[in-house]
């Protein structure tokens, strides 16, 4: 089986990111998953166990003092080193801020080809074929890199399954210090980890709020319904711009693309740029005062009504059920 190199973006606190599961699952379908990590010191046994549990057959553990003080380059160096050592038939990275930059830079260094923001990848006739969801799911496109190393970024939350667990064989390599001009990371401010709610990317249920919520205080209603449904919280751009919630919750064209089983839109008009991020949801429910709101054109169940009247009743009914 060919090796598939997978970039695991360990955080500066040593955490395995949520994207690792899906990346390793895709890698296991295409070949033998080789996880590439970058850390300042020796890799933590807990990290090794977690990556093994997610299906890493090998770990290419790169070490450098600059792991978390130089931006990007240590990851690119580690990947280039892993490509040379394992002669993979593909490289996978998350379509995250760091992952896509590392993928692009690696492609230039290795002369590889890039397949970006894929939602799936499989083997067909011995070659790797990627699936892309384009223009908010309006099109499904298949693509391939025929002659050179395919470097693939995978949309977070797009892959559901998990690879069978493995006991990883760990190779530790020391990276040479980066040469040339670099970007320095002076400090980190980590977003508080949200343990009580599912992550927006990949969540089975998403409750999103829009400008119709009116204020940051009122936006709590969205969170209350989300909690009653065990859902992640999303938002329209207008809600983000108005400061009701942080940008990381934005769903749509320039935000996160979600494909949950259930998407509930509260006080959202359903502008085309918002629909581009959620119209592939299995079931869509919308509550909006305006009976002509475009969101109703795609909602499986549309309620013309006031969110401040309907949503508290829904929460109450859900409480009574359980």
């Amino acid at each position, binding site marked *: 089986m060919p090796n598939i190199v997978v970039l695991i973006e360990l955080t500066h606190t040593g955490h395995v990111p949520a994207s690792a599961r899906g990346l390793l699952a895709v890698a296991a379908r295409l070949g033998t998953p080789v996880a590439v990590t970058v850390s300042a010191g020796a890799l933590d046994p807990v990290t090794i166990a977690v990556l093994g549990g997610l299906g890493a057959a090998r770990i290419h553990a790169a070490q450098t003092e600059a792991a978390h003080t130089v931006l990007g380059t240590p990851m690119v160096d580690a990947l280039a080193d892993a490509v040379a050592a394992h002669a993979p038939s593909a490289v996978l990275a998350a379509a995250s801020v760091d992952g896509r930059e590392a993928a692009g830079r690696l492609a230039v260094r290795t002369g590889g080809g890039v397949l970006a923001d894929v939602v799936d990848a499989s083997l067909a006739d011995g070659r790797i074929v990627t699936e892309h969801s384009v223009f908010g799911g309006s099109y499904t496109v298949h693509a391939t890199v025929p002659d050179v190393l395919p470097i693939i970024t995978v949309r977070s939350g797009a892959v559901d399954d998990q690879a069978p667990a493995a006991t990883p064989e760990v190779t530790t390599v020391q990276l040479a210090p980066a040469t040339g001009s670099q970007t320095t990371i002076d400090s980190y401010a980590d977003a508080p980890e949200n343990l009580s709610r599912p992550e927006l990317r990949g969540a089975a249920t998403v409750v999103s709020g829009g400008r119709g919520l009116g204020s940051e205080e009122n936006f709590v209603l969205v969170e209350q319904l989300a909690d009653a449904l065990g859902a992640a919280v999303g938002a329209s751009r207008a809600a983000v711009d108005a400061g009701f919630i942080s940008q990381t919750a934005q769903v749509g064209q320039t935000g996160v693309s979600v494909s949950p089983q259930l998407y509930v839109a509260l006080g959202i008009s359903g502008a085309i740029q918002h629909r581009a991020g959620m119209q592939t949801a299995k079931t869509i429910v919308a509550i909006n005062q305006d009976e002509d709101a475009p969101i109703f054109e795609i909602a499986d169940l549309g*309620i013309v009504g006031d969110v401040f009247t309907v949503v508290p009743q829904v929460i109450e009914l859900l409480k009574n059920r359980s």
Partner: protein
Amino acid sequence: MKIVVLIKQVPDTAEERRLEPDTGRLDRDANEPVIDEITERALELALTVKDKDKSTEVVVLTMGPSEASKAIRKALSMGADSGIHVLDDALSGADLTITSAALAAALRNTDADLVIAGNESTDGRAGIVPAMIAEHLGYPLLGSLLSADITHGMVTGERQTEAGTQNVRAPFPAVLTVTEGFDEARFPNFKGIMGAKRKPVATLSASELGVGSTPRSSVLDLAERPARAAGRKIVDGGAAAAELVDFLTAQRLI
């Protein structure tokens, strides 16, 4: 200081966007072409630097078909000093590899202190071209910034990642990308529109840039998803909440 801003012409997202069924390429006739919103914000950042220090030179660079010259003209009318248009029929259907190689080659001769781009475009959404350009040029990359402070041969800024934010810095020359959190672009005024006509725009072909035009990736097939149909719509007369819960129960969603 010399700043080159990468601008991209994209189909307006206010209408349904289309792909050509045979090639998988963008159907450019289906929508009004506009400057991608985030690259317009990138230009705004460069123009704010120029507002503070008049000696700053702002160049816009784009690769695209001949109609992309309109995007350059608009940027010039907003206040950019000159434009570079990478224009070559051989480059139509270029993938990330070709696009980044061509833009990097065009940048090599500009002696830019800073290259500013959007973190991702609304059509491709790969978010990769600026990183590839930085690697081609050997410049440090400051990607996905929420803020940028550009002074004394140095860029510092706050960068958004999935895990939180980071404070980063790099010396000139550097490539930085802005997110949509940056200020909206200014409108061109009458004086700007008149002045734009006299500003220089250079045109460069693939062969002048010494880049090939064979893509590394290829589209195998595409399928259009049927449009979603509207479902049931009810007007709340007091019972809508109960109907919603019944619906979710029937669909086994709760």
